[in-house]
């Protein structure tokens, strides 16, 4: 997969977000076995300890389960996955509103440009 690491956020946070999106978008399926920390770290060109910490965060979010014998897998709890997905959607929306308000747009104007844009992509 294509990894993008930018300058401002902690690297761990960026890895966690990108891996979480792989799971919520279905690129990694529920119950699927995940590549090892080393493999993913090499692929992303990051420190293995940082990748390890990203996995710990994903476990904390309930997206990844660690089995002593089978290694790491995506959770089979699809409800959990949908909930995280909803949170991600919410975050995108919040960010969009924040940016629009930053440009001085009020609610009605936002609605208007949004509907316009939706028409255009149809």
């Amino acid at each position, binding site marked *: 997969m294509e990894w993008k690491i930018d300058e*401002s956020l902690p*690297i761990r946070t960026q890895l966690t977000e990108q891996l979480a999106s792989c799971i919520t978008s279905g690129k990694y399926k529920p119950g699927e076995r995940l590549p090892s920390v080393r493999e993913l770290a090499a692929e992303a*060109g990051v420190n*293995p300890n940082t990748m390890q910490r990203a996995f710990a965060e994903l476990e904390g979010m309930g997206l990844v389960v660690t089995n002593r014998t089978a290694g790491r897998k995506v959770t089979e709890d699809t409800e959990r996955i949908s909930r995280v997905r909803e949170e991600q959607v919410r975050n995108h929306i919040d960010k969009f509103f924040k940016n629009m308000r930053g440009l001085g747009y009020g609610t009605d104007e936002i609605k208007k440009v949004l509907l316009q844009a939706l028409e255009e992509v149809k």
Partner: protein
Amino acid sequence: MEEKLLNIKSLTKSFGGKTALKDVSFELDRGRIVGLLGPNGSGKTTLIKLINGLLSPDAGKIYINGSQPGTYTKSLVSYLPDRMYFADWMRVKDLIKMFEDFYSDFSREKALKMLHGLAIEEKDRIKNMSKGTKEKVQLVMVMSREAMLYVLDEPIGGVDPAARDFILRTIITNYSENSTVLMSTHLISDVEKILDEVIFLKEGSVILKESVDSIREKEGRSVDQLFRELFSVTPNLTGERGEEQIQNVL
């Protein structure tokens, strides 16, 4: 409590009245990749040479797994010098033989695998190689040891970005989980992602030792950006601004 892998205490070194290192102290844990960062002349190579026992300190102590630099620590530390030290007439196979003779922890298998990945053959001669290829071969040799501490002096200094990528990947895939890599560089943006923590050296003193992610968390910017600010030099502003910034960071 387990002994620290590297313990440096109040290290001072001068060359003919000019202080290269001034009361440097820090410790390194196992299983880390650590960047030793600083502008030219900040003391990086001096520190590395002291760790490798190539220089002796004027004051202070160095302990590597509990022992001071000497014959024994050479078996623990795999060192990449800032200069090429292989004889030109050698072929890759001679180098492998030399490393096997010198170091009992050298893995021929690991070396051959990495060389194969680079399309370098055992019969290739050093003198026919490009500068970048020579550096890659040298790094392969150093990383093929199962050492406790890898000390790399500017491993990506003289190579193009594609080769840099190869070298950094070689480092992250080949250090073992209990060993530590200490690497000096001034090309921070290239190495930042592979580092656990960084040590900033300025005029022979450690001014910062912190994990990459906690710097990003606190500062909201990369280590590279912080470095550029701390070490920015303007004609009529020497050092003072840096000191002030450091106070803010610490």
